[in-house]
């Protein structure tokens, strides 16, 4: 790991300036269950790892192999609970930062959500109330985390099954103000955006109009399924054509630096994942 991290140019601090995101290309989420698949799939320009599942001292051989090939590996966190009412757990931030350094990652990410509250752990990415209060707390947490990270932070929109009452901002406005106040990057998940459009009536066009696309780090694409009239973002099913349509709408406005396919369960044959990557490339043109 040290060897991987050794010969690197140190990049600007996360909090400072508008350092542009480098071109990432098309990628896939690396998971231990599909490590060999990810290694041999053609045209994987970058990968993402779930930060909480890796140990800096014992990085999987497959991840190190990808790094040796020069494939960027981006740590993606799911547990910082940045929108939680409590200050962010410093140990989780330290782990994310150490992982970024060990992998020489250009940036790291987590979600616009809360995970824990009142002593309970939801085990999931819970939506935030879109209120000024929640935004103030989120901004304060993000700024504190940025101080402790060696690389820029990108934040992702989540899929919600329920809506908080008394929202004061649209989701796009909420994210735009978050970016404006923290200088974070955005990780736009088009499947989550589709889910919210389906389940909560989020206006996709308005969302894309409102977010600062010049701060886009990369895009997530994932599969899901409808169950009793509600769309579930499962990451265990094929990517819907409707989700690729949202990607196309985004592509019509901006050439995203990267697009990454997430698959977390019920892993299909290599050919199926390759076909999904090809479908993404076709949309990007």
């Amino acid at each position, binding site marked *: 790991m040290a060897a991987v991290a050794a010969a690197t140019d140190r990049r600007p601090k996360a909090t400072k300036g508008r350092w542009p995101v480098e071109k990432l290309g098309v990628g896939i989420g690396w998971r231990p269950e599909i490590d060999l698949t990810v290694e041999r799939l053609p045209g994987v320009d970058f990968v993402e790892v779930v930060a909480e599942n890796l140990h800096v001292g014992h990085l999987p051989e497959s991840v190190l192999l990808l790094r040796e090939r020069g494939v960027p590996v981006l740590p993606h966190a799911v547990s910082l609970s940045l929108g*939680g*009412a*409590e200050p962010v757990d410093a140990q989780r931030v330290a782990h994310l930062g150490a992982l970024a350094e060990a992998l020489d990652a250009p940036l790291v990410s987590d979600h616009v959500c*809360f995970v*824990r*509250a*009142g*002593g*309970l*752990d*939801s*085990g*999931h990415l*819970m939506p935030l*109330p879109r209120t*000024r*209060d*929640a935004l*103030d*707390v989120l901004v*304060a947490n993000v700024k504190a985390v940025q101080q402790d990270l060696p690389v820029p932070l990108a934040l992702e929109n989540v899929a919600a*099954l*329920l*809506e*908080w*009452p*008394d929202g004061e901002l649209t989701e796009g406005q909420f994210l735009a103000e978050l970016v404006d106040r923290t200088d974070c990057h955005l990780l736009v998940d088009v499947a989550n955006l589709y889910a919210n459009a389906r389940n909560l009536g989020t206006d996709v066009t308005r969302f894309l109009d409102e977010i600062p696309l010049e701060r886009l780090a990369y895009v997530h694409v994932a599969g899901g399924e409808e169950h*009793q009239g*509600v769309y*579930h973002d499962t990451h265990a099913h094929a990517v819907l054509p409707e989700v690729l349509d949202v990607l196309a709408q985004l592509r019509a406005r901006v050439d995203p630096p990267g697009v990454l396919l997430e698959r977390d369960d019920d892993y299909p044959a290599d050919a199926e994942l390759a076909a999904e990557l090809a479908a993404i490339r076709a949309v990007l043109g």
Partner: protein
Amino acid sequence: MTRPQRERLAAAQAELLRALLADGAVPEGFDPERVRVEKRALLSKRRGIVEMLRPDVAVELGERFRPLFDAYAGAHPKEVGTRFREDAARFAEWAAARGELAPPRKRRWWQRAT
């Protein structure tokens, strides 16, 4: 600087999680049907993780796994600091204490998993 906001947010988030993970009432202003859907989704995710971590327990319980886990989960919401592996172990102990699962045998070194 954000103390009043944090206090209000903490109360609202805790109330929602109590409704979703334990036996709390649906907080005012939320669609009860959506809270039910979210509650079921979170339970299903937690059950799936425990099933993945302890396939032995899931296999032994068979069709009883799901209703038993759901009863356990509602009474024992996952607390901050509890790892999923501990959650799975506690469920196995809970099921064994109720006589649903054979008490864990002492494993010999050559049988030890993981």
